[in-house]
């Protein structure tokens, strides 16, 4: 990542400048009040941040995952911590999937509106009984003569309250069949009478509502189907790989922000005779965390470059999982040591460290647990037998 192009430097500078407008205090207030960061999301929309990977012909920037991780890292490091990560990520997933799968003119128009930031698209895959095993979801779309009828339930579906579209992942039954022919993707308008949802109270990220979603007799036209019937997973796979790297980049950005604050504090704070940053019990953990973050960042860059090149998908997927694992471990260690640097003050909300600590915990659980990344590395990179 030492040699960014002139364009990448401008993109990063733009993301940093936007992030600086919404500093830590903005996010603290919104977290405390459980308020949606509307001004921040609107600024992302207006500046075209949701169209990074959308082709230029459809109003996007036509860039790759290498550029997207730069944007994500800069938004988090620039002042927001984890706050921007989730809002940005959940607005991207549906759009990124459409980039791969939108075919009809109508669907391309939908993509244009998403790239331009005129609409936001939420993303619904997770279910209470499926967990990481996406093939085990039970929400089902049944094909009928002129339309589909969908029933089921989803879990941890973020920002339904503020989105105008929903990318819904379902099992599919062809007309007359009771067997699933695989996963399908549907683009659904929000709000929708057939969809009801209730937020799940959670540990952090209280700016965004993550919902239990109930789908009762949702009827959608055939044109709402994205990609091929029963072959939705193929359209979804690139998005899920990218999601790992985006979370990794968000974790590194959040941790770098926490570390920078801790370093500033450690230079300033004098309890006995010298600044606490001169004590090795403070200095070494911060130095070690910094080194690990740099290593993680190089892995993210490598994984994103492999993904963009597209020549070796297996190696790209392995590297994405390894980068996610390493980045999240490094980010958790950094946030732990940054909070510890503050002593008791680290527990006070006004210093933000406790919030970043809460936020970084999500990344060891979602989009998949650290243990599942190790399963992937063990099985697909090292060639060990599958245990589950």
């Amino acid at each position: 990542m030492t040699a960014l192009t002139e364009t990448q430097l401008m993109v990063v500078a733009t993301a940093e400048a936007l992030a600086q407008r919404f500093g830590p205090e903005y996010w603290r207030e919104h977290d405390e009040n459980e308020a949606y960061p509307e001004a921040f999301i609107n600024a992302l929309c207006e500046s075209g941040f949701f169209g990074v990977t959308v082709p230029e012909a459809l109003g996007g920037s036509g860039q790759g995952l290498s550029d997207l991780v730069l944007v994500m890292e800069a938004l988090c490091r620039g002042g927001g911590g984890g706050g921007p990560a989730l809002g940005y990520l959940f607005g991207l997933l549906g759009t990124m999937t459409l980039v791969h799968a939108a075919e009809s003119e109508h669907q391309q128009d939908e993509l244009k509106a998403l790239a331009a930031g005129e609409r936001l698209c939420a993303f619904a895959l997770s279910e209470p009984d499926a967990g990481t095993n996406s093939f085990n979801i039970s929400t089902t779309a049944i094909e009928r003569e002129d339309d589909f009828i969908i029933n089921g339930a989803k879990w941890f579906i973020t920002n339904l309250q503020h989105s105008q579209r929903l990318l819904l992942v379902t099992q599919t039954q062809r007309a007359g069949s009771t067997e699933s022919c695989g996963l399908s993707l549907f683009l659904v308008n929000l709000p929708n009478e057939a969809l009801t949802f209730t937020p799940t109270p959670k540990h952090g990220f209280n700016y965004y509502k993550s919902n239990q979603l109930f789908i009762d007799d949702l009827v959608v036209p055939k044109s709402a189907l994205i990609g091929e019937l029963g072959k939705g997973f193929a359209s979804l796979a690139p998005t899920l790989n990218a999601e790992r790297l985006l979370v990794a980049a968000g974790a590194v950005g959040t941790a770098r922000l926490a570390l920078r604050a801790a370093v500033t504090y450690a230079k300033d704070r004098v309890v006995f005779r010298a600044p606490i940053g001169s004590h090795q019990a403070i200095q070494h953990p911060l130095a070690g965390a910094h080194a690990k973050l740099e290593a993680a960042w190089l892995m993210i860059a490598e994984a994103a470059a492999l993904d963009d090149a597209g020549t070796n998908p297996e190696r790209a997927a392995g590297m994405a999982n390894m980068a996610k694992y390493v980045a999240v471990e490094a980010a958790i260690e950094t946030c732990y040591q940054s909070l510890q640097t503050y002593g008791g003050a680290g527990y006070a909300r006004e210093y933000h460290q406790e919030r970043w600590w809460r936020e970084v915990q999500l990344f060891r659980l979602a989009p998949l647990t650290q243990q599942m990344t190790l399963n992937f590395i063990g099985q697909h990179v090292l060639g060990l037998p599958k245990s589950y």
Partner: protein
Amino acid sequence: MKALVAVKRVVDYNVKVRAKADGSDVELNNVKMAINPFCEIAVEEAVRLKEAGTVSEVVVVSVGEKSSQEQIRTALALGADRGIHVEVEGRPEPLEIAKLLKGVVDKEQPQLVILGKQSIDGDNNQTGQMLGALANMGQGTFASEIKVDGDSLQVIREVDGGLQTLKLTLPAIVTTDLRLNEPRYASLPNIMKAKKKPLEVTNPAELGVEVKSHVTQLGVAPPPERAAGIKVEDVAQLVDKLKNEAKVIS
């Protein structure tokens, strides 16, 4: 109507500027550079005039080393149509820049030239005025509002204790004050488009301008560090020290 906007590459306003160890200059190694904030306001104003249909083309020019092209690209991403880079080595002084800009004005024949009132590195506040004199154009400096009206320009200036309204005949020169507008952020698609916009590189010889420096920088020093204070025993001692040591009261 064509608008010409001058932009300067300076140390980013967020950076704490340091002197080099040998005191010869400001440290610029590994320092984040950006468009001078007043120049950014100038670009924004020109782009707004274009969006309003008053201006048909926005040309952005920068005088400086090759790296100044980064700031021209940023201006193009903000909405300018094309760029001109006048390549010079080192750091030219205001009169040299004004002469080079005069060369560009002669070539481009803009109806409106917008510059920042000063750059945050040299703080000279001279280039716009010198260009006005060299190009024989009327000038409205420290503008907080401008309005094009046919072949004239109304400029509201921020002056000590109030506002002054001027009417200038076009072509004219405007230098921007802080409150003229709030510059936008470049959108990502516009950053991509900026890559494809034309950027012409020229030099003093091509413009027929001879640049000659009249000023030599002898040294750069940081302000002295603030010394520690003392605690006084009582009000009488405080008054005594203010009177006899600090000599701020009599």
